[in-house]
């Protein structure tokens, strides 16, 4: 029996998975938001803080105001673009800090074991018991409004999520023979952990971080909505929604809908990308190297 070349290729090659269109769109949207935020001074038609009280609540499409104006007459598009900076950077800060802390704690717990593992795991359980948003509100109450306190507090709140994943992954990886081989070769424990174990944990961390980013964005927008985030007149999506409440009563919902849609789409896209990363990792681990 002979097999044709194409048949051989089909048998030997792994099934190819096409990247879904939705994922590509989500990634493109996130990229566009990031670029728009970074280039806000170039793209925004007006200063985000310039008020024009007599020109307030102009509907979308008004000359010079593509997305209309808010109740203080500020250009909604300009505030949306500038708002992307804080609205994306702050959750990025939460993710970076929580990933750093969670990875360190998770690796320490897994590699040290014994009483250190028990102590760190219980500490993570304690933090886990506090809702992150409540922790952030407490931080604002103690240190005052602004982004620094809630970012740090949310980072602490998110640390156990990362720590648990890293600990679990590190325990699994630690049982594999390649790590023992490095030790036999005389490499030190810190070097083995950071150089060889951590890279194998990193993909899962990336998926976890993407999900955390979405949660952090919503949490920070909620804090700004409650007046506990950035101080006016700084543009921030959550604050834009809060400031638009009166406009909604006046039949001018766009100044709330625009930033609301920005939050929804950004979080949805982050989730889509994060979910894809997680699924890809799952498949890779199932199929083996």
């Amino acid at each position, binding site marked *: 029996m002979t097999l044709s070349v194409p048949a051989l290729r089909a048998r030997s090659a792994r099934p190819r998975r096409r990247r879904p269109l939705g994922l590509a769109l989500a990634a493109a949207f996130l990229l566009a938001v990031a670029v728009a935020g970074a280039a806000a001074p170039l793209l925004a038609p007006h200063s985000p*803080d*310039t*008020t*024009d*009280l*007599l*020109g*307030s*609540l*102009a*509907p979308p499409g008004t000359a010079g105001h593509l997305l209309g104006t808010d*109740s*203080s*007459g*500020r250009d909604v598009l300009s505030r949306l673009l500038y708002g992307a900076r804080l609205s994306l950077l702050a959750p990025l800060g939460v993710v970076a800090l929580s990933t750093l802390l969670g990875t360190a704690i998770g690796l320490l717990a897994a590699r040290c074991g014994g009483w250190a593992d028990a102590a760190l795991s219980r500490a993570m359980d304690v933090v886990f018991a506090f809702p992150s948003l409540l922790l952030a509100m407490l931080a604002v109450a103690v240190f005052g*409004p602004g982004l620094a306190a809630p970012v740090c507090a949310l980072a602490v709140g998110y640390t156990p*999520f990362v720590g648990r994943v890293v600990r679990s992954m590190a325990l699994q990886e630690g049982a594999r023979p390649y790590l023992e081989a490095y030790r036999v070769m005389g490499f030190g424990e810190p070097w083995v952990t950071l150089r060889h174990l951590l890279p194998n944990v990193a993909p899962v961390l990336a998926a976890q971080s993407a*999900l955390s980013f*979405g*949660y952090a*964005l*919503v949490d920070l*927008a*909620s804090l700004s*909505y409650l*007046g506990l985030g950035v*101080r*006016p*007149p700084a543009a921030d999506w959550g604050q834009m*929604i809060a*400031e*638009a*409440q*009166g*406009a*909604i*009563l*006046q*039949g*001018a*919902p766009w100044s*709330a*809908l625009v930033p*609301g*849609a920005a*939050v*929804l789409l950004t*979080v*949805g896209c982050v*989730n889509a990308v994060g979910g894809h990363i997680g699924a890809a990792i799952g498949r890779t681990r199932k199929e083996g190297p």
Partner: protein
Amino acid sequence: MARPLPAALAAVLLGTTALAGCTGGGTAAGGASAPAVTTSVPAPTAQVGTVTWNSALGEPASLDPALSSIESASTVVANMCEGLFTFGPGYKSEPALATSVDHPDPLTYVFHLRKGATFWDGKPVTPEDVVYSVRRVLNPALGSSWVGWAAHMKSIEPTGADRVTLKLKQPDVLVPSFFALPSFHVVEKAFAEKAGKAFGTAKGGVMCTGPYKFGAWTQGQNITLTRNDAWWNTAVKPKVKDLKFTFIADPAAQTAALASGDVDGQFNVPRPAHKQLSGKGHLLYGQSLAPTFLSVLNQKGALGDPAARQALQALIDYKGITGSVYQGTAQPLRALVPPAAWGYAGDVYKTAYDALPEPVQDLGKARKLVAGSPRAKQKIVLAYSRAIDEESRIAASIADTAKQAGMNVELKPLTGEQFGAMFASPAARAGVDLFLSTGYLDFPEPLEYYQYFTTGSFYNFAGYSDKEYDAAVASALGTAGPAARARLIVKAQGIMTRDLPTIPIATQYVNVYYGARLTGLVPRQDYLYTPWATTLGGK
């Protein structure tokens, strides 16, 4: 994570705003024409069982008249407790628990109490009750803010079966106006002493003489008052049997409750809701004694330089504030005290007021002033209540135009508690240079406000001091003749307008909304101290 998806949370947020948007009244506009001021409405003809009224500023902490200095309490207490006199239309003093007062010399007032007036429990009002009530307000342990009138008081004593005598140390023309305010509200001595610290609370209740009796107070939900059919004032027949006060503080929820009819009425309807509510029931406007203004709190910083204060005054967008923020329900102010508060000698006040410069935005002038003043470029922290949408917008506008003029104004939004603390605690005012707020005069006497800015006054937070100003105010306090007093007051007003320890912005109308089935209530600032519910009833 065992949490709802963030995208779902964001969707709920977006969905809420979208649904709320559907309730609006169409495309909004930036400016608005001035609404008509209502001075009379048809009298009620029908009895009403229960009227549900919302307190826009939430639940009061106490119904003790001595502690009713904030609107949430005053709106309720005004229907239950009475003073020796009351305000009629136009703030004319009318008899209440006293039928008359003799003023034999500038330092003595002799009150003749009404015979037959009783508390809700049927016990008669005695001179001892009156004296106890007035002295109670003066007790520092109670912490009443109605103590201010008594700076020149010498004594108050029962001097007969239906007579009380008040003596002053020096003449004070403001004192008689307080006879109609909670400073002279009468509570039952025996009841208050028995209730102790519980007096005025949900548990302890109050015992007064007014047209509505304290019924029940379910904390967090409502306060119910019931008509006092044994009220001494038989000339007035209240048409509403029960008054139920709710405490909805969120503007969107207030609007929904008023529009649906769940709540019958409310004072201080949020402006964004006016358009939506005006077609449903009666949304009425009245002249108010309320100025919105900036107070300089720190004279050591940028605002210690008069040029910086003048620049601030020049950069305010008066047209935008009155036309857009207040939607035509306000007028720009040339002086701190609004024209509606000229209770006498109107021609004297008007001549002086008209001579003051018209408040107009002049960014060019502001830039010049800032350019010539190095101090004006220093950081200015502007505090305001973030719960008041209008003032948040005014603050944002000031910060923006200040930036355009070369000044550096940093905004500090305050919570309700922080805002309240600004008036009571120097620590709360620390680090704040400028304070945006809306106050109101208790009666149409400009001196009531201008006296607060004399040297050493409790409310003179910035420590403003001008000997000429102090002398003019002191003389006015001892001048009984209206025209002469007005001339002294406008002199003080001129000094204040020159020095700008406060920067007046606008005076807004008082407003009230009530459902289509009701009538009778004319919006007046004195609703805080007069039994306004007695005018309300069915059509």
